[in-house]
């Protein structure tokens, strides 16, 4: 009998513990912060995604009204982010798709870090972007086609990474592109020659052992041979 009651007591205790875990959580704190803060959210996602041994992102406090007082972030008069300056900051980890939400971003300077993974397709949503500097990282995967949507892009420096695949033909649509550097990668296929690509010299493409040279126009298909 005593044991029975004991078991019941134990069970009751267990139930109490269980109920505590069941109680509907008050709106998850991080979520609430993020929703107060749509632009900061995109940047804060980056902060969570990277390792930051030098604490350069220490000032990125998601509870602030906007990210404009965070270090390495520059805003315009409407408190919209225009520059992200994190070149040579010893960051490691990967880029986050949320970055694509920064519609007024003009300068994305993340060069000389140890970023890995691929360039998120969402970067193509940065419609004000003037300069995309991701050179000297460890990025892999293909150059996303979506970069061809960056109609204001003037400077595209992706050199010295481990990017693979073809150079997307759509990039030739970037009429404002002044500088292209994809050297020191593992790109393959042929080099586009149309549009803004007509002015880029071999320098822009060197040290991609599998890159086959300028595409031949006319009857010859531009991408013979295997390229993955």
């Amino acid at each position, binding site marked *: 009998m005593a*044991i029975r009651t*004991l*078991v019941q007591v*134990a*069970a009751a205790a*267990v*139930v109490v*513990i*269980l109920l505590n*875990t*069941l109680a*509907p959580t008050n*709106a998850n704190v991080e979520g609430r912060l993020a*929703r*107060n803060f749509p632009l900061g959210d995109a940047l804060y996602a980056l902060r969570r995604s990277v390792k930051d041994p030098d604490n350069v992102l220490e*000032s990125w406090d998601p509870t602030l*009204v906007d990210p404009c*007082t965070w*270090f*390495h972030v520059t805003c315009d008069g409407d408190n919209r982010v225009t520059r992200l*300056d994190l*070149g*040579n900051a010893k960051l490691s980890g990967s880029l986050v798709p949320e970055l694509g939400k920064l519609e007024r971003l003009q*300068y994305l*300077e993340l060069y000389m870090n140890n970023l890995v993974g691929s360039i998120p397709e969402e970067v193509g949503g940065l419609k004000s972007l003037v*300069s995309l*500097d991701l050179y000297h990282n460890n990025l892999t995967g293909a150059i996303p086609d979506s970069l061809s949507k960056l109609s204001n892009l*003037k*400077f595209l420096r992706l050199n010295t990474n481990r990017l693979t695949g073809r150079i997307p033909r759509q990039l030739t649509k970037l009429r404002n592109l*002044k*500088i292209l550097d994809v050297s020191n990668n593992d790109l393959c296929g042929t080099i586009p020659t149309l549009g803004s690509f007509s002015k880029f010299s071999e320098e822009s493409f060197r040290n991609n052992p599998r890159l086959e040279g300028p595409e031949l126009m006319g009857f010859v298909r531009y991408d013979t041979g295997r390229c993955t």
Partner: protein
Amino acid sequence: MFHFILLFTVLDALLAVTWGDSSTDSYWLLRSKSKLVDPEGVLESWSPRAHICSWNGVTCSDHEEAYVTGLNLSASRLSGSIPLEFWNLISLQILDLSLNFLGGSISPEIGHLQNLRTLLLYSNNISGKIPPEVGLLKKLQVLRVGDNMLSGEIPASIGNLTELRVLGLAYCGLNGSIPAEIGNLKNLASLDLQQNSLSGPIPTEIHGCKELQNFAASNNKLDGEITTSIGKLKLLQILNLANNSLSGLIPTEISHLTNLYYLNLLGNRLNGEIPLELNNLFELQELDLSSNNLSGSINLFNIQLQYLQVLVLSDNALTGSIPRNFCSKNSKLQQLFLAENKLSGGFPLQLLNCSSLQQLDLSNNNFEGEIPPSIDKFEKLTDLLLNNNSFIGIIPPEIGNISNLENLYLFDNMITGSIPVEIGRLQSLSTLYLYDSLMSGNIPIELTNCTSLTAIDFFGNHFSGSIPETIGKLKNLVLLQLRQNDLSGPIPPSLGYCKKLQQLALADNKLSGVLPSTFRFLSQLSTMTLYNNSFQGPLPQSLSFLRKLKIINFSHNKFSGTIFPLTASNSLTALDLTNNSFSGTIPARLAVSKNLRRLRLANNHLTGNIPSELGLLTELTFLDLSFNLFTGEVPSQLSSCRKLQHLLLNNNQFTGRMPSWLGSLQELGELDLSSNNFHGHMPAELGNCSRLLKLSLHTNNLSGDIPKEIGELTSLNVLNLQTNNLSGSIPPTIQQCEKLYELRLSQNFFTGPIPSEIGRLTELQVILDLSRNLLSGEIPSSLGNLLKLERLNLSSNRLKGELPASLGKLTSLDMLNLSNNHLQGELPSAFSKFPLSSFLGNDKLCGPPLSSCMDSAGHEKNRLSKTAVVCIIVAIVFTSTVLCSVMIYIMLRIWCNWRKVSISNSSEGAKDEQFKREEEKWIYGETKKRKGGYWRVINSMALVPSLSQDHVSSSCIFHVKMDTK
């Protein structure tokens, strides 16, 4: 007989006996009494004068000799170590010391208590290990030593206690694995190992505990798969393995446990599908499989699990919808938690038959479609959590029928329409979260009938109209979040009667008017954010009653008058009044908020000095006083604000020498003193601020050299020193500021050559502006390394010599100004794209866009004979005369035809004007007040005569031409 026993007693006492009696027992008990701290006097009756069997807590045997067989001192507030003497009470069958404050450890001598059947030591402060000698207590039936500070492993010898029915070892720091010998405990009914650090797998041998009814091992570090042998514990009623690291599938053998009414596996790493066989657990009342990696669809049926009251499957990877025939008619289901899965489909209408439901959580799934009007079939519902799905449509008015509803979370959906007025019938409603949706319309006045409301969050919708006049009826309101809507009108004065309000967020609306003086009653208020509205007028004095305010953000409104009423709290952490029309001075009493971290008063009409008391704000990280009318010197007390990261004093009328104590603010990342009247030298101590990212000192009266310590600012991104009286040469140490992307030194008196080291600043991007100085010498070829540079201005210096060919590598350059120097030679061909004005004022430069180098006197390489020259000139004059005559004839004809029509500006003229405006940015003239901006220039007619004449209307051109004729 008595003598014989006495003799024996003494001997026993001396020789650590194996048999006891009452007199030795009383001896041991009296000794132990002296070692215990007994604040309640429960041991008072323990005295040699009374018979031991009458002592409090002591039970004796029925024999004449009266051995002590039981000792119960439970919940007696006893402290001190467990007296070793207890272990000599060898006749003890029951020892209950539970719920005291006893310390010490369980001594190995416990093994002497061979008669012990019940040992209760739980809820004390006992430390050390469980001695293996416990295994000697062969008669032990109940062993509960949990809720202590025991450590070490569970001794394997515990498997010897074959009589054991209850084993309680929970809430200790036990580690190691569960010993396999536990399987020998054939009589064990309850095994409680919760909240330890036990690791390793659940031993297969557990199936030996055939009598086991309760097995709780939650909150340990158990890993491996759940042993299938657990299915043999047929009598098991409770199985709690929550919060371990168990992996693999849920063994289908669990379905053999037909007596199970409680099953909790939450917080493990279980994967695979939920076994269909779990539906055989007919007795199940509570089932929690949440926070695992379970996948597949929900294939549990309330129809079979008829007694189920609580079902928790949240935080898995479950897909599909809820089974069509999920609910039974007589459902007892009260709580259904399916949050954080990948469930999809419309609102699961099949759930409406579970009318017993009290709490329903479908949040963070992929549900879509409308919320059904029949939702009111959940008569007993208190909590409805549908947030973070893709629900559309309106909130059905029938929601007003769910009269017990307390918490309604609909946020992060795509719900449209307005709040139904029926919501006013929810007298129990406490939390209403509708944020991040697409709702619109007025906030219904009926909402203020929900007097139980404690939290309202409507952030990020399109609610319009005004805040209900009667909001003051919500006496229990703690949170009112209406940020980012289209609300207009004033704040109703009744809001001041929501006396429990702690957080008031009305930012990002179109609210206007003055703050009501009733705010004085909001004494619990800690956060008040009103930014981005059109509030105006002076602040009510009564705001100084709000002593608990921590965060105030009134920025971007039209408030005026003094900020004094906002400085009454002594717990402010952030005060942001940016961009209002506040006037008066900064009250010194602001300094009583010792935890103030952010103080932002920029863009107001504030006057006076910075009070030196601000130096007491040692937690301050952000001080922004820019764009005000502050005067005087910056008090040196600010040097105590060692945590300052942002110090923005720009655009005021501060005077005095640039303070050298700035060098002690080593956390500084941004320092802006620009557009003031600071004078003196740039202090060398500034080099200590090695975390500086932006340093802006432009438009002051600073003089002297740039200290060479500038090179210690290795993190610097932006350096702007333009428009000062700085002199000397640019220090080569600047090359160490490797991260500079913007460097402006224009409008100073710098002399000497441009240091070639500047070419090492390869991250320069926005601008390199050295214009309007006295720089001399040649342009260093190293500047050609600045491959990212987009703008370069070296104009109005005394630079000479030829342009280095390397400058042609500056392919990123968008704008270039080399005008007004003494440069010579041929321009790199890459420069032909820049306008003429980029190079004017250099007599000896040539090449496109300037005139061809062949024409330049003194540099002709192919000299032409005089006759050839004469011939060419004659030919040119002749052809141009012919051409002109023809043109004049044609134009005259046209003019004669059109003479009565007024002549308007040609579109070409407009184009010219546009072109000229672009040019203006790059051709500089004189600006009197040189504030902040760069390249703010006025068109200089003298520099571009051709353009200015083109500007004249076409009719004038015609007259000019006519005249020439």
